[in-house]
């Protein structure tokens, strides 16, 4: 599956305000993380399923996720960050963010950092973690040459819309679909 064509979304990673400390440790994902990242990625895709029948998850989504993550981790244009918990959840991956730098052949800035997935386990939501993830992934994308950061998620996902709108994002392109 081509990362740049897949419809993606974001779970509720909304954070009301910057907390004093963020209860996670963020680091680049590594190939040994793939088995724990796959179920998190699938949770996000199953959430997307709730928004539109055209986002129905494939039967082989788990294998696809595995291959995709493996490709992302080997691709210098991709960013995959793993969020580890703290305290009793230390060393447990509780969320991740996946993004890629794409070229914009017609527009400036010429490179766009696209956030494809952000997922956090529920207990880590609403604690400024999403905000922190967004900041860190934006920095990483900028480091790879992106001059603009965008996010893809289902049009009906109002939680994601609000999350990004609050942080200065606005809709610039829309993808409309119908079955064939």
């Amino acid at each position: 599956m081509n990362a740049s064509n897949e419809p993606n979304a974001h779970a509720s990673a909304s954070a009301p305000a910057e907390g004093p400390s963020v209860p996670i440790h963020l680091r680049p994902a590594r190939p040994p993380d793939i088995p724990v990242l796959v179920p998190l990625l699938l949770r996000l895709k199953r959430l997307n399923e709730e928004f539109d029948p055209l986002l129905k998850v494939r039967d082989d989504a788990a294998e696809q996720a595995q291959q995709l993550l493996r490709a992302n981790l080997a691709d210098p244009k991709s960013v995959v960050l793993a969020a580890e918990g703290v305290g009793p959840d230390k060393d447990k991956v509780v969320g991740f963010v996946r993004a890629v730098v794409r070229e914009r052949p017609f527009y400036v800035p010429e490179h766009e950092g696209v956030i494809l997935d952000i997922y956090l386990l529920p207990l880590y939501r609403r604690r400024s973690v999403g905000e922190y993830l967004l900041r860190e992934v934006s920095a990483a994308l900028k480091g790879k040459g992106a001059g603009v950061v965008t996010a893809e998620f289902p049009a009906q996902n109002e939680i994601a819309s609000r999350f990004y709108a609050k942080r200065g994002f606005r809709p610039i392109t829309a993808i409309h679909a119908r079955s064939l």
Partner: protein
Amino acid sequence: MADSSVATAPGGREGRRRAKSAEAAAERSEDQTDALGRRSVELSAFYQGKIETVPKVPVRSLADFALWYTPGVAEVSRAIRSDPDRSFSLTGRWNTIAIVTDGSRVLGLGDIGPRASLPVMEGKALLFKFLGGVDALPIPIQVSSPDQFIATVEAIAPAFGGINLEDIASPKCFGILEELQRRLEIPVWHDDQLGTAAATVAGLLNALELTHRSVDSTRTVLLGAGAANLVTARLLIALGHDPHRLTLVDQKGILHAERDDVDELMLRNPWKYRVALQTNGGGRSGDLASALAGADVLLAASTPQPDTVRPAHVRAMAPGPIVFALANPVPEIWPDVARSAGAAIVATGRSDFPNQVNNSLVFPAVFRGVLDARARAIPDAVVLAAARELAHGAARKGLTAHHLLPTMEEPEVFPEVAAAVGDTAVRLGIARQKRSHDEFLERARAMMGRSSRVVRALARARIIPPMPRAGRRRRPR
């Protein structure tokens, strides 16, 4: 039903005997329900409705209508226009509530629609009047969305001192209640959430007392995550129950923050989602059996289905556990089966067993209290005050494993509950009418007593005709 009761019982002759008795009880109850249903249809055809409006002012001649109606009444309207709160003292608003439903979850009948729900709402109105002295109007409404429901209730609110929401499906009932409570300046109550939860909490407080437990160190399992149990969980936490020592279980097993459907809940049922995140510390997962291991309390309010709770479940709980099996008409486990599996205290939703957890213990008194205080709202603190007073009421008569809660035959408790509700409304600053405890109590006794006197007087005067014998189909003139 009978077959699965057999499966719930322990083995051996004793087990078979108990199973037989449970089976017989189930059959008896089914027969009884059939007979009551037939009779209810017969009487409904005879009386054609259960309540009617009756004047409460003298009408000596038609000339009096110049006072009760135009032109005199215009001055009353002017007075209310300049001070809207006077609608509580110059009209019947202070004692009138609406029973509003969309008919989406009526009794065990499901989504039967507003028309079919009317007999149930009339019955509720009769209970409100008879037990609480409250004038309640049944108002089933035909609506197609929660927003339309909310807008409709908001539109009719000026006529009422309170709103009782009834028989609305979960989870939409949560959003409807929350939004109406936010918008309206009168108490809004949903009995399936608050009434059931308050009665459950009252019974549980006494059960904990009897078994020398305290709410802050108890481990409680709630089976069923619908309207009643989600609110019960919230109330228990408000009472000091450690949320981590609460575990909810539904058809999909233990409700926890990493369950597969938790993101779906976030979108479709945020109330349940919040409870999933808050409860079940230590991250138990699995089925009811895993939840119950070592638990002190089981509060089962699930879809009626026998054999939901088995003796082995009860045996796996902490010694001397408390079991509330509240599904109606068939409890999740029969009381004798639960007791022989070691339950120290058992309560059900049925009147033919001891310890009936019954909404009717709560809602008439709660409304009596908030109406007498002309309250602007009905926060959880008021609900808890009612639950505590109900628990005290039972304790005053002597607390035993068979007397956890007052029965409907102990009506002296209800004015006390109403007074506790009124007091709390005053204390919270939401009462338009401040009264002392004794004044609330006096008034509640008078109002509650008056209704049954009125019904008796009307019956004596044959204005309410006597019940026809079964099988007769004579209609009243």
